[in-house]
């Protein structure tokens, strides 16, 4: 409802925000980056037919597959997805059964249609899936795929994710889909905080660590092999690393002071905040924690580094060197420091995969008794122009970009009241992924 109400206001708001700025970046150009479609251009209209059950006992899993495929294509943000109620009743299971004329006209009016069959035998589920171009009667096939997986809920979900990602890659501007990506997060319960993981759509949430202490700031490595996080021990918070291949903790050197907010570079290096010298500063170390070197030196907190994933040569982070925390960027050798935010209380910065944007939490009117709320903002690095992505849904924090740069996952509410939400990077399509007690989401690199 919020989204629907806000939609007509957005262009006006954006125009107001950008009007006083000297170097104007046309905003539709920014939208282009998020959605893969330029302003004014239609999104690809695609229908997802219900698949045909190849065997009677596979009907329940087939419904899971249909639901997940439909939801994935909708979540992608690049399609005009035909509502199920607008499309033909038919469930064509093979290209022979497909009559494209039924889908190209009428209320469906689809440019593409995805269809196929789902069958299960001997504990294996098999999906035969196609995408047809409804306007190419002679050679309609755009995509033909076969998937097999275990004949259970997870297997059906996985096959739907893979097919959705294939369609998104093929029709969504050549950017791989995110349906197979994971979101790591912090789950609070009974005085402890453990690291959890869920699928990108909030399904299949389960615990990764069982350390019985307070663990925060999970960051998964670019190859999905390790999670770095910060954990409270006898000597305060230390960086710890869990191997997703070995399913156990692996060594990471500890140091004096508070060590927190690890961040992986695309090349495997790790940046973090450490107060081993007595003041929290940003350090960069090798993937195993060796050769730590300090790259900031200013009094006050320096935390929450995030690498420019595109170049790997810049870091954005949060510094309290001038009082309230602000977003800064610098080169990885500590040179070229630029302050990005001009006021308020800005934290939890995340750099977009294409290197162009920073997402961060910002309370522009911070102070005792101030009316401001903390919301997610997005800033164009080159021009420092920004837009506000959330408003009125509660205190937002910890934005993290999806691998395709089209989505941002974030936390709403704080402490025990936090939930995890996701949205498209233009602020639309907000919905909840994980319930109360979930915080600090981190989207995998792929």
């Amino acid at each position, binding site marked *: 409802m919020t989204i629907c109400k806000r939609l007509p206001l957005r262009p006006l708001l954006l125009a107001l925000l950008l009007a006083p700025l000297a170097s104007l970046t046309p905003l539709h150009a920014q939208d282009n980056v998020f959605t893969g479609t330029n302003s004014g251009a239609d999104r690809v209209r695609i229908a997802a037919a219900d698949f045909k059950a190849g065997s009677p006992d596979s009907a329940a899993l087939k419904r899971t597959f249909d639901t997940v495929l439909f939801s994935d294509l909708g979540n992608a943000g690049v399609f005009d997805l035909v509502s199920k109620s607008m499309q033909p009743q038919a469930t064509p299971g093979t290209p022979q059964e497909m009559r494209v004329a039924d889908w190209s006209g009428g209320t469906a009016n689809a440019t593409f249609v995805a269809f196929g069959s789902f069958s299960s035998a001997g504990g294996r589920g098999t999906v035969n899936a196609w995408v047809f171009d409804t306007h190419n009667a002679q050679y309609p096939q755009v995509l033909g795929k076969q998937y097999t997986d275990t004949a259970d809920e997870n297997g059906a979900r996985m096959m739907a994710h893979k097919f959705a990602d294939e369609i998104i890659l093929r029709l969504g501007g050549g950017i791989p889909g995110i349906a197979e990506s994971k979101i790591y997060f912090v789950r609070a319960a009974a005085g402890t905080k453990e690291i959890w993981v869920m699928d990108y759509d909030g399904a299949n949430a389960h615990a990764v660590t069982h350390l019985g202490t307070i663990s925060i700031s999970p960051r998964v490595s670019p190859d999905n092999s390790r999670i770095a996080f*910060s954990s409270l021990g006898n000597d305060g918070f230390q960086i710890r690393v869990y191997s997703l291949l070995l399913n156990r903790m692996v060594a990471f050197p500890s140091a004096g002071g508070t060590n927190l907010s690890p961040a992986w570079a695309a090349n495997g290096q790790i940046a973090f905040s450490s107060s081993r010298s007595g003041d929290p500063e940003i350090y960069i170390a090798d993937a195993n924690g060796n050769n730590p070197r300090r790259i900031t030196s200013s009094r006050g907190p320096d935390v929450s580094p995030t690498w420019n994933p595109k170049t790997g040569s810049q870091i954005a982070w949060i510094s309290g060197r001038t009082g309230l925390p602000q977003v800064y960027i610098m080169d990885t050798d500590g040179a070229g420091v630029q302050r990005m935010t001009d006021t308020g209380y800005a934290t939890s910065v995340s750099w977009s995969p294409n290197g162009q944007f920073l997402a961060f939490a910002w309370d522009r009117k911070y102070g005792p008794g101030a009316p401001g709320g903390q919301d997610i903002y997005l800033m164009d690095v080159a021009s420092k122009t920004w837009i506000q992505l959330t408003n009125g849904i509660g205190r937002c924090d910890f934005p993290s970009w999806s691998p395709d740069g089209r989505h941002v996952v974030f936390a709403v509410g704080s402490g025990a009241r936090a939930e995890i939400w996701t949205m498209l990077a233009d602020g639309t399509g907000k919905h909840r992924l994980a319930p109360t007690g979930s915080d600090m989401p981190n989207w995998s690199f792929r």
Partner: protein
Amino acid sequence: MIQQHTLRTRTILTLAAASMLLLSGCHKKDTAPPPYAAAPTVASPAVPTATLNAEPSAIDLGQSVVLTWRSTGATSAVIDGIGPVNLNGTTNVTPSNSTNFHLVVKGDGGTAEANVRVTVRVPMAPVAPTSSDLGDDAAFHAAVQDVFFDYDSYDLNAAGQTSASQAASYLNAHPNIKITIGGYTDERGSAEYNLALGENRANAVKTAVVNAGVAAGRIRVISFGKEKQFCTEQNEACWQQNRRGQFNIDK
């Protein structure tokens, strides 16, 4: 650490209760022995007298003590913790903790009592005396006040300076105590930034204490940010409670 202290208090109380039970249990046996058949005296009976000695009067745990007692004019004698005894006698006892031996003799002319205390030196006594200089939590927290911070600041205000110098003088007077300083923030703002801010707060307190002459090696700093809150309501009074540098004895 407060819990440990409570536990210790409980231990003392439990021991006291146990020994009281033991003593009262022995009183019941008073009626058991037959009265000693002393020669009846027609004249007004003599008032009994009693003496009780222990040799040595202080032992290590496991050693024994010789108790010697004498009485006159008595018809029965009882020592608490031992039971009915002869009117004169000696015995060996091996008390497991310091004990008051209490002799009561009864005669026709009345009763008489005698006491002797045997001190048992228990190594690493579970009921450690609270005067140990390794730090007593109650005394420590009575003398040392936490430092409270202004909103979003890690500089000590005037009250904070006072707390820090009080803590420093206590530490200078008790050179064996090591401490931790915990850095805490209120629940507003980012969890990561607050952990760094908590670190700066705890370090600011440490610096003040070190400048007042306490060796830096006696102080360990831990930031808890907003992960461990003293108070969970959402109002300024509560937030102020949470913005603190907390002193604790490092054990």
